């Protein structure tokens, strides 16, 4: 016997083996339909007695295994069912002949056989026959199950008669020696009359009867027979058969102890029949009752009353611990015979299944350890695969998942061994996938986000590489890309620099043919491979939604009702409410984006790779609002530090927009990275309100732009600055061109001005304008311009400066006749004064720089379009910087006594510091014309 049945379990010893085979040409589908129906009849309560028969169906059974039928009767094919197609009466004799040929194969052991003919109708089909059943087609054969039941009953009759026959045989003189195929030549010429020989025959026959009893549903009897057989065979050192007797004993005990079965699938089947141990006891009692009518059993064990079966069972049945000991013993006997390798292997497997139920995994692993080293013969590759697979399955059964994964992987590698002409990459891939849980791997990258890495990274990487390779050889590049992406994403921390390069290179070469997607890949066997987003290429540390630039920021018009106040509470301030608001704010951001305007999100990213990382097609993933993302491409230097990346997009509708994540294309793999699944990311919130579109105003002025920016106290930013230099008293017209560069009409415009705090005293209006003219051009359609004129008038008091006052004090002295201070000194002093205020200006202004600065902001509040309807406006600020210079200097002030003592003449030395001619007019006095740079004395 050379083909082990790895699926065997202890309770198979009580089954009758029936082979179901097709004859002639029967389509596989049809055959297995019938096979399925036939094998559903797996246990039968025999008529008149309450014994149960179990049937094991096989559609394939090697005849050489059949030869071991005497050794263990459950290996014997006792029934044959053939299924055939026959459509015309003419083919019938031929078909029937084939049936006979088929019968010949198992002929020596068959108790009975049946032929199921499909398709034949007419005369032949009408004849009632017991061994042949005719059905018009595969759909119309209700009576199949009934036929099978009848068939099994006929098998039972033969079995029962054999059992009784053999059981009584032992009292006779001649007991034939049962033997296994390889023993036959050993017994040639043996003295058949010796005591030793007789005992051997007796022992073997006892064992055989035990087997038959077990099959016939008489558990108690079989136990008795096995016990006797063990004693007989032990005395003659017939080890092989002693092993078999011990195993039989174990099997019977297992069947008693574990009526649910030990072999997984079959267990479920049996559970339907009788699952409870008490039930099992009842089931066997009727069997024991029949002991009464069994003359053999009567004489041997003396069980003659129903009540005594309890005692008998307690004595004969092995305890769970003993079962294992006996299995060990049996296996040690089997191992003495090289030719009984299969028996030994199967016994190991059966013992492991029993131990698995007893939850004694350590002992089970010892049995398996032994099974690994049973050398049968040169195994074919297929058998090796089968063997490793079953080892893996058994290790799984006893809870050694890692060991199981190891053997499964060995089996997978065996599928594609170099010695195989046609490597089974598909099978290899399937087996490799099954090993994943054993290596603490799953195919979902989400499992790797939580906490520490589980499993042996080096082994996991190797396995993933094998998966990549197998899937590539299978001809499924999408799978290889998915696995390779998974490897890169989850094992990044464990890859060396060189490996990172290698992996990315091969990934790029794969994706050039088959780009990686974000779709769920489904395998034919129902397994789904979730997408692998590259959240680590690059790593995003912070996501920040940016406000619009100040000039485009929408503002809400303050309504009279005070909508801005929290309506939740009647109090202006409550710490509780404030706290709640804070929480809300953590999710929602307190600024708005505007429909149709470019919005920005800043990501802080870094590249963990030792080479330059090219990220293409990087854009935002949003929900809630129609959003047009404008993807960016970037290239991050090797192992860069944090690197700011700004992703932009345009909201196309209004509402709440949520930034869910971003998408990238790296190495040809598309990834959708959701912020929720990113570990350790900092964000200032991800939901923003998008308000309806507003117009955009651009202003340009007639004056040059100023590099200097004003720093207004309120925090408003100023978009444009202009500067102008004016002499005191001069008026300048500032033309402002207003252009609507948005897409909405500009309907409203309000202009306000604000003069920044200054110590200077201003006379008259600094800035004045007439809005009406401009407003007459409104609404301003997109692309249109309007002009707006502002008059800047500088009227400052330069006389009050500290230095002049000082001069006046001096002059007070000079009244008494002291000389006046030199003009030079007077000029120097203000220069020193002005220096800290405006150092660059003062140095530029030359000698006579009494420059004063005036700064003002012109605010343009404008609105229009749908945004206006919702009460939003925009604010654009124009900073005006005016440098005012005095036009005249009174360089010297002195008094002269006048003719009257009540009066005196005030002498003013006036200096024109401008480059222009100017006229000074004093109160009811004549005018004085002063040329540029001229100095005159005036009374």
């Amino acid at each position, binding site marked *: 016997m050379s083909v082990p049945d790895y699926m065997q379990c202890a309770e198979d010893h009580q089954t009758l083996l029936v082979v179901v085979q097709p004859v002639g040409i029967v389509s596989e589908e049809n055959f297995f339909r019938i096979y399925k129906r036939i094998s559903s009849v797996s246990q039968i309560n025999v008529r008149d007695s309450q014994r149960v028969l179990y049937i094991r169906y096989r559609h394939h059974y090697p005849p050489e295994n059949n030869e071991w039928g005497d050794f263990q009767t459950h290996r014997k094919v006792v029934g044959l069912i053939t299924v055939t197609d026959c459509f015309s009466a003419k083919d019938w004799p031929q078909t029937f002949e084939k049936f006979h040929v088929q019968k010949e194969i198992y002929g020596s052991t068959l108790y009975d056989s049946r032929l199921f003919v499909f398709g034949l109708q007419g005369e032949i089909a009408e004849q009632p026959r017991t061994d042949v059943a005719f059905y018009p087609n595969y759909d119309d054969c209700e009576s199949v199950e009934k036929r099978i039941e009848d068939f099994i009953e006929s098998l039972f009759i033969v079995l029962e008669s054999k059992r009784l026959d053999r059981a009584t045989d032992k009292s006779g003189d001649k007991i034939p020696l049962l033997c296994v195929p390889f023993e036959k030549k050993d017994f040639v010429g043996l003295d058949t009359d010796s005591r030793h020989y007789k005992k051997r025959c007796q022992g073997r026959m006892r064992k055989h009867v035990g087997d038959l009893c077990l099959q016939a549903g008489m558990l108690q009897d079989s136990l008795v027979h096995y016990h006797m057989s063990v004693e007989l065979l032990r005395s003659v050192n017939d080890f092989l058969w002693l092993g078999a007797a011990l195993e039989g004993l174990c099997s019977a005990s297992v069947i008693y102890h574990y009526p649910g079965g030990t072999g997984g699938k079959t267990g479920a089947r049996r559970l339907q029949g009788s699952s409870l141990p008490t039930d099992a006891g009842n089931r066997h009692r009727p069997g024991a009752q029949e002991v009464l009518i069994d003359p053999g059993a009567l004489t041997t064990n003396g069980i003659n009353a129903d009540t005594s079966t309890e005692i008998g069972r307690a004595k004969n049945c092995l305890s769970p611990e003993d079962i294992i000991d006996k299995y060990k013993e049996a296996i040690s006997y089997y191992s003495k015979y090289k030719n009984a390798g299969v028996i030994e292997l199967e016994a190991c497997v059966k013992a492991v299944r029993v131990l698995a139920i007893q939850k004694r*995994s*350590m002992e089970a*692993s010892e049995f398996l*350890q032994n099974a*690994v080293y049973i050398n049968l013969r040169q195994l074919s590759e297929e058998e090796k695969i089968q063997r490793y697979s079953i080892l893996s399955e058994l*290790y799984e059964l006893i*809870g*050694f*998942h*890692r*060991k199981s*994964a*190891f*053997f499964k*992987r060995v089996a997978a590698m065996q599928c594609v061994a170099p010695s195989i002409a046609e490597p089974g990459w598909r099978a290899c891939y399937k087996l490799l996938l099954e090993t994943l849980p054993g*290596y*603490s791997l799953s195919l979902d990258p989400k499992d790797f986000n939580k906490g*520490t*890495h*589980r*499993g*042996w*990274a*080096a*082994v996991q990487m*190797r396995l993933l590489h094998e998966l990549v390779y197998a899937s590539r050889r299978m001809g499924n590049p999408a799978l290889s890309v998915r696995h390779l992406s998974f490897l890169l994403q989850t094992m990044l921390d464990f890859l060396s620099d060189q490996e990172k390069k290698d992996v990315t290179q091969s990934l790029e070469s794969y994706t050039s043919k088959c780009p990686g997607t974000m779709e769920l890949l489904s395998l034919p066997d129902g397994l789904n491979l979730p997408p692998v987003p590259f959240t680590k290429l690059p790593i995003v540390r912070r996501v920040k939604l940016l406000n619009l630039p100040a000039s485009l920021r929408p503002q809400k018009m303050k309504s009279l009702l005070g909508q801005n106040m929290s309506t939740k509470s009647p109090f202006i301030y409550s710490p509780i409410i404030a706290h709640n608001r804070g929480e809300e704010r953590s999710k929602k951001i307190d600024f708005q984006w505007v429909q149709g305007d470019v919005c920005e999100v800043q990501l802080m990213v870094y590249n963990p790779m030792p080479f330059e990382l090219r990220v293409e097609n990087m854009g935002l993933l949003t929900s809630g609002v129609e959003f047009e993302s404008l993807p960016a491409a970037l290239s991050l230097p090797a192992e860069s530090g944090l690197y700011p990346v700004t992703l932009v997009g345009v909201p196309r509708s209004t509402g709440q927009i949520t930034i869910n994540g971003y998408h990238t294309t790296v190495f040809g793999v598309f990834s959708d990275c959701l912020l929720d699944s990113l570990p350790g990311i900092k964000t200032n919130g991800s939901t923003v309100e998008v308000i309806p579109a507003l117009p955009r105003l651009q202003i340009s002025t007639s004056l040059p732009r100023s590099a200097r920016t004003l720093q207004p106290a309120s925090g408003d930013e100023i978009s444009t600055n202009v500067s102008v230099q004016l002499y005191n008293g001069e008026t300048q017209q500032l033309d402002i061109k207003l252009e609507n560069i948005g897409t909405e009409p500009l309907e409203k415009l309000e202009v306000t001005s604000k003069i920044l705090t200054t110590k200077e005293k201003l006379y008259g209006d600094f800035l004045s304008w007439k809005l009406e003219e401009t407003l007459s051009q409104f609404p301003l359609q997109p692309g249109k311009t309007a002009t707006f004129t502002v008059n800047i008038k500088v009227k400052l008091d330069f006389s009050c400066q500290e230095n002049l006052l000082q001069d006046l004090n001096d002059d007070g002295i000079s009244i008494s006749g002291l000389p006046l201070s030199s003009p030079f000194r007077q000029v120097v002093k203000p220069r020193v004064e002005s220096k800290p205020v405006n150092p660059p200006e003062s140095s530029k202004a030359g000698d006579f720089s009494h420059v004063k600065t005036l700064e003002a902001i012109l605010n343009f509040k404008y609105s229009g379009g749908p945004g206006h309807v919702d009460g939003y406006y925009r604010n654009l600020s124009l900073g005006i910087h005016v440098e005012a210079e005095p036009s005249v200097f009174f360089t010297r002030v002195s008094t002269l006594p006048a003719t009257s003592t009540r009066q005196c003449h005030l002498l003013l030395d006036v200096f024109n510091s401008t480059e222009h001619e100017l006229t000074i007019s004093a109160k009811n006095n004549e005018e004085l014309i002063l040329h540029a740079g001229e100095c005159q004395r005036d009374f």
Partner: protein
Amino acid sequence: MSGSFYFPIVGHHDNPGFEIEFLPAEKVESKHDHHHFNQSIAHAALGLVDANRWLCNNMHLKTVDKFNEWFVSVLATADHVKFITLHDVRQDHGIKNLFSDVYELYIKLAMNLFYKPYSPIGSSTFDIKVQFLGKKHLLS
């Protein structure tokens, strides 16, 4: 092939914190493939180690598993860190000594405040010392 040893220290999540190979002097270069094979066998034995450590009073669990010519000897510390030796020759005494010496080293390392328990061991001193111990107990 014979007389080479593979010695990983495995943490709670089957993650090796430290790996080293001791090879006889004449065989300096270890094949890359071979390394993977060792790792696989050691990984497969972990289930048996877990089962064994509840049955054995001693930290030194002796040989818990074998695959072909490879034996797996294990010392499981009180906090479930596993010292594994994969070997193809029986050298119980040497392995036992190696285990106890490395265990002492490991305790010292574990008491270091800057070492996060069960994380990969990056200390070069540890590496050098284990290397030395391996030569002393296994290869001499």
